[in-house]
Each structure stands twice: as structure tokens, then as C-alpha cells.
């Protein structure tokens, strides 16, 4: 009984800040402004399917790239001496100490037509290149902002892999590549699926990155939802419906992923 009492504060927190808001979202999604039940908000989603698919496409690409970049980085860090591991993790984490908006603004000044990168190329009479206001810049923003969430869970499982097990694999004939595919990846499965979820979920619902780096032509579902609550097209009923649909889609993708996750994770 006593241990159950300890859970009460969290349960109250959950009810106030998760269950009730979720109920409100569902309520708004299925009602009109006058409070009558309707499916019209959900049906209205049809107009935004392209945005929804773009959001999913961008975040899948960003997640895959984060995974491909994160795997070797996490592995290398996990094999460093203990002291150096801390320093390297610090370097991974430090950007997260800086405000999200500021980080994204920094990318704007780097990528702009007369930004730092183009000016650098200009020295060699190259460019200017069109680096910003396109889908690539949005995906880059997602990768930059969320890759620590890939590296950290990968690192935490990889650091638990016994060095002896890797040596045993080498001893039995594994080259570097086979050590990765036959030992490291299977033993990192848990970290891979955690990393994919922690990168994919915030990516698919992000809204500021696309507006700052996408130049208004690459709006994501997050931007549309935001504008239903704060923008000119104020309509919390439609915004709630969109949130709900996005949530259901994310849940479906996640459960599908968990179903086939084991095979996918091994590549």
C-alpha cells in the first residue's frame, strides 16, 4: 500500500496534464464551434494530406540519417577510455544547452544566400548556392536538433557491450564490418529502437524549423496545427482534429515498427 501512495503525485500530474488535455483534444476534434458533435474537422484533414505526408517523409529521412550518423559516433565514443567518453558526450550534449530557436537562427545565418557558407565559397568565385528555403535545409535542421537523442540511447547500450565479446568475435574471424553487423548492431537493438522513436516523434511534429529554414514552401503539419491555435486561421477544432490524427498515425507507425523492429534494426 505504501508504495502506491508514492505514485499519487505523479498520477495527479498525469490526470491534470495528460488525461484531461487529451480528453479536451478529442472533445474539440469532434465538435463544432457551437459544441455539436461532428466529423467535419476530421474530414477537413483531407486538404492537408500533402503536408502530413511531407512531415512523415522528412522525419523518416531525418531519422534514418541520424541513425546512420549516430551508430558509428556512438560506437566510437563507447570504445574510448572512460575519461574521454565523458568529454565526447559533453560535446554531443552542449548544443542542447543553447536555446532551440537560437540554434536554428544560427543555421539561417550560415545557409543564407549571403550567409557564411556562401561567402566562403564566394572567395573561390563559387556560388552562391541555394542552401536555404528548401526541403534539404528543413531536414538538416531536424538532424542537427535531434541527433543527440539518437546518439545518447545508442551510446548507453553500446557502452555495456563487453570488450571481451568483441575480441571473441575477432578471434573467431570477424573483420571490422562483421563486428558491426553481427555483434554491435544486434546487441544495440534496444538503443536503436529508442533512438528512432526519440528522433522521429519530435521531428514529425516540429514546427519552427520548417518555417525558419523552409522558407514558407515546406510547411509541416506542426506549422499548420500551430496556426490553428495562434495564427490568423484560428480554429482550435480543426487544430485538435489534426493533432489527434497525427497522434494516431505516430502510434500506428510506432506499433508497426515495434512489430517488425527486430528485423529492421539489424538492417
Amino acid at each position, binding site marked *: 500500500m505504501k508504495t502506491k501512495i508514492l505514485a499519487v503525485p505523479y498520477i495527479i500530474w498525469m490526470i491534470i496534464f495528460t488525461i484531461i488535455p487529451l480528453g479536451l483534444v478529442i472533445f474539440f476534434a469532434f465538435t463544432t464551434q457551437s459544441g455539436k458533435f461532428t466529423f467535419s474537422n476530421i474530414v477537413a484533414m483531407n486538404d492537408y494530406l500533402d503536408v502530413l505526408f511531407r512531415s512523415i517523409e522528412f522525419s523518416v529521412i531525418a531519422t534514418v540519417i541520424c541513425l546512420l550518423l549516430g551508430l558509428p559516433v556512438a560506437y566510437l565514443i563507447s570504445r574510448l577510455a572512460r575519461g574521454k567518453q565523458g568529454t565526447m558526450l559533453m560535446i554531443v550534449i552542449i548544443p542542447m544547452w543553447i536555446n532551440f530557436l537560437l540554434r536554428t537562427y544560427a543555421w539561417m545565418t550560415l545557409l543564407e544566400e549571403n550567409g557564411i557558407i556562401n561567402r566562403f565559397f564566394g572567395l573561390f568565385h563559387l556560388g552562391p548556392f541555394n542552401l536555404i528555403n528548401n526541403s534539404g535545409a528543413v531536414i538538416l535542421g531536424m538532424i542537427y536538433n535531434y541527433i543527440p537523442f539518437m546518439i545518447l540511447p545508442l551510446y548507453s547500450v553500446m557502452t555495456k557491450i563487453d570488450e571481451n*565479446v568483441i*575480441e571473441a568475435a*575477432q*578471434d573467431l*574471424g*570477424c573483420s571490422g564490418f562483421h563486428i558491426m553487423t*553481427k555483434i554491435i548492431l544486434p546487441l544495440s*537493438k534496444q538503443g536503436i529502437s529508442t533512438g528512432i522513436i526519440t528522433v522521429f516523434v519530435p521531428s514529425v511534429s516540429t514546427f519552427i524549423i520548417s518555417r525558419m529554414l523552409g522558407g514558407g514552401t515546406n510547411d509541416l503539419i506542426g506549422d499548420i496545427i500551430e496556426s490553428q491555435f495562434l495564427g490568423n486561421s484560428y480554429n482550435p477544432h480543426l487544430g485538435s482534429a489534426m493533432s489527434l490524427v497525427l497522434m494516431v498515425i505516430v502510434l500506428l507507425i510506432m506499433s508497426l515498427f515495434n512489430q517488425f523492429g527486430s528485423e529492421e534494426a539489424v538492417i
Partner: protein
Amino acid sequence: MENIIISLKDAIVDFDGEQILKKINLDIVDKQFVTLLGPSGCGKTTTLRIIGGFQQMKSGSLFFNNKDITKLPPHKRQVNTVFQKYALFPHLNIYDNIAFGLKLKKLKDKEIKTRVQETLELVNLIGFEKRSIHSLSGGQQQRVAIARALVNRPKVLLLDEPLGALDLKLRKEMQIELKNIQQELEITFVYVTHDQEEALTMSDTVVVMNDGIIQQIGTPVDIYNEPKNAFVADFIGDSNIIDGIMRKDFLVDFAGNSFTCVDSGFENDELVDVVIRPEDIKIVPQIQGAITGIVESVIFKGVHYEMIVEASGYKWKVQSTLHEDVGSIVGMNIEPMDIHIMHKMGN
């Protein structure tokens, strides 16, 4: 002519400026059971890791069948290792653990299956194929580790204190089993241990190491009966090490008395270590003994009693099937052939 399969030449290994191996030379004879024996930190595991390819030398070279393999990575060497903490693959079942090396060699499934079966039979684990390694006892995991290495039919099997984590009874059984496997398969075993009894039981050749230096190489009988220095004598079995003076060939003074011995070739009046095994000291009535002492303690050890006898400033360890009472005065005699004379260490 004995065929040397592995030859280590002038191997030096440094860790953070500290010399772990101090220029050692070691030849390992094909099809022998060779044990590297020594206290922890003596360099025995480092030596094994050099052969396995996991440890780079600062200088020196390694030959395998007269071919220089110093720079060859581990996965290309014809040796396999049984690791100290088993190092089984936690994500694979027993069959896949054992088949791991064969699958990498891209053998046919059918051949892999027969070879895994043969090996499971060898280590008495038939029927365990589908089990997870987490469901096995320490002894069974050890067998899987041995099978996983042996199934590749290596020319040389390296074993790094493989029985260290097992209880005494199981360890004794595995010692005999390992020796049988080695003789049945006729491959070279290089075995690292700090347990002198294990080394004496199983080996054809024992290499005693200390402080990054090979102290003595020989058969178990040689090492036990003719230790080269006081370290080897002390490490292999129990020993009393007494300061003595070699008066002339076959005559040594220690414990206030002169003794006839069988050693010669020392300088006259050279200071020496006299090594006497506890079981070689005979307890006799006081007047018949060459050395007189007081029994300080008696411990029952099963097969024999172990007594500590205080005499001429030393505490003598004596093993006997009979025992004297604590506090009684006894005489001790030693046969000439049981007195081992050694140069002082460091000379």
C-alpha cells in the same frame, strides 16, 4: 625433432611507461599442453594476448610455423581463444554461438551442423543447442566457450584462466577433461593460470613467469623438483626458503648446522637460498634432530598436518601425517637430496 609452432622473440610490452614484458623469448612446441604460470601482473595474460593478436608489442616479433605474424590481425590467425569471462554472445543461442566462426568461414550448413554436433559431444553438451546462454551454469558456459573455439579446429588453442570462476570440484573435473580433449585432438594448448596445482596437473611444459620475465621453462616434474630460483620454488608448491652459506661443493651451512647436499658448482662461501619442501622435513625426537625447534601451531589439512616450527630465527613449515603438540620441542632432519641450493635472487 620437435616442431616449434609458435615462437616469440624479444617481446617487449609497455603500459603507460611501465614495462609489462621485459624482452621475453618463448618457443612453444607443437601438440603440447603449455602453461604460462605466475602471479597476477606477471605478464602471462599479456603474452597470451600477443599470440591471439589482441596486444601489440612495443618491439619484438611473433612467428607461427616460422612465418612472421607480428602484424597479422586476430581474425586472420589460426589460433582461437577461450576467454576468462567466457565472452559468449548474449544474443545468440548455444548452437549459434558455437557455429559463429564456421558461418563466417561460409561453410555449408550441413557441414556446420555436423561439426557443431561433434563438438557438443566432445564437451558433453548434446541437447543444449536451442538453449539460451543465460540458462546455463558457469561450468556449462565454460564448455560452450571451449566448444566455440575448438569447432574451428585451430592449430593452437589459447586459454586465459578458463576455470578461474568454477568451484574446486568442477575445476578438477574440467582440468582432466581439458587434458583429455587436448590429447584427443592433438592440438597445441597454451594455458594461462595462476594456480600452480592446475599447471602441474595438466601441462607438458610449464613456463613460470614473474615481473615480465620468464623464470623457468620445464616439465612439471623439473619445475617442482629442480626450481631454478627461490621465486619458482616459492611459487610452485610450499617452500621454506632459508639463508645459507655454501661452504664448498656438496656442503652447506644453515640454521646453525652443516648439511651434506647434492649441489655443486657454487663459489666457496657463497651466500645462497636454501629451499626445503615442507613435506621433506622429518620430525624426530629432539636429540636425533639436526635442527631443534618449538612447535608453534598445528593445522589439520585433510591428508596431512601442517605445523609451523620456530627454529633458529625461521618459521619452518612442516607437513607430516603425524603431529606434535603445540609448544613441544622437536628435532628436524632433512635428507641431502631434499636440500635445494639456489643463487640469491638478483645475483
